[in-house]
């Protein structure tokens, strides 16, 4: 078998790799903070964490828009040769859904916040417009939606990580190393 062209070995740009890990860590942190803060008793810390969570959500949304623009402009490396068709399709759709969720989850949180009567002021400085008027029932529905979308995303992230590990450990291909260049075998 012809060895892959060196250029195809790590075709993700440094920007794409940085954005991937930045967003990945941000998602895990913001997700964890979201779960932690909702279980807290009402306190100044709780209100503070809610604000931080919202600021993180806005930041992530901006990073995700940047990532998606970068990906649409620069493309992504192809799947390894010999990967079964169903795996290619699964990978393609998992990534599409992940992007969709990463874009819609912050928006659902923002709308929920407006409906619950708490405007989002980015870093306490920049007010985001309230697209919805205060409506507690709608606020509760949006909270359920925000939670459901997050569960969906968590499931896909688990799948995403499992697939990456499977590529590295079982298939022993370069898929994970493309995003973690220090794992490169050759």
């Amino acid at each position: 078998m012809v060895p892959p062209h060196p250029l195809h070995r790590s075709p993700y740009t440094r920007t794409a790799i940085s954005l991937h890990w930045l967003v990945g860590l941000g998602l895990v942190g913001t997700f964890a903070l979201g779960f932690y803060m909702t279980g807290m008793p009402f306190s100044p810390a709780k209100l503070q964490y809610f604000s931080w969570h919202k600021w993180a959500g806005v930041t992530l949304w901006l990073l995700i828009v940047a990532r998606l623009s970068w990906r649409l402009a620069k493309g992504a490396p192809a799947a390894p040769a010999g990967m079964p068709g169903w795996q290619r399709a699964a990978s393609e759709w998992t990534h599409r859904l992940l992007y969709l969720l990463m874009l819609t989850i912050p928006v659902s949180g923002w709308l929920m916040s407006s409906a619950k009567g708490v405007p989002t002021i980015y870093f306490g400085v920049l007010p985001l417009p309230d697209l919805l008027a205060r409506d507690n029932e709608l606020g509760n529905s949006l909270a359920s939606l925000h939670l459901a979308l997050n569960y969906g995303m968590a499931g896909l992230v688990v799948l995403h990580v499992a697939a990456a590990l499977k590529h590295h450990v079982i298939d022993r291909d370069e898929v994970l190393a493309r995003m973690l260049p220090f794992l490169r075998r050759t």
Partner: protein
Amino acid sequence: MTSTSLRSAFAALALLAATLASHTASAVDYTRLVTDKSALSFTYKQMNAPMEGSFKRFKGTIAFDPAQPAKGSASFDIEVASIDVGSPDGNGEIGGKQWFNAAQHPTARFVSSSIKPLGNNRFEVAGKLTIKGKTLDVSTPVTYRADGANGVFEGAFAIKRNDFAIGEGPWVDTSIVANEVQIKFRLVAAPK
């Protein structure tokens, strides 16, 4: 009749007419607060986000004659438990001990002590505000306008929640929930 006595008779008539006219004007004497047309709201900042709240139930007495504003008076009883702080989370907590302690202090009260005309249907109303058992002097500008038979009184003033111990314990810290609370009112009063 001499011309002098005629003149004085006219003067007396003019005086009578003027007295009558002023009496008619002062007949607009607002005495009843129309609660369902009145509103008592407030704004404050939470992590710099502007929040809006209101008190749904309050009652009061008003005695106000625009021709003799300084003689007017007003007092209001506000049902603390009717507060809406602008978010469901906050509403679940605001009646508690650290906040309004509504069980022990169910009523907030304002009683006017003086009304100073500032001209142009604007007045400075001073009075005593009691919240959570603490009484402080406050004063607020009020504008008045007639709306049909009713009088509409509007104004806003600021208080510091910590002055009334609204938010004790960890809430004394004003970096999360600001100390300043803007109180806004729109009071409609009817004659009789």
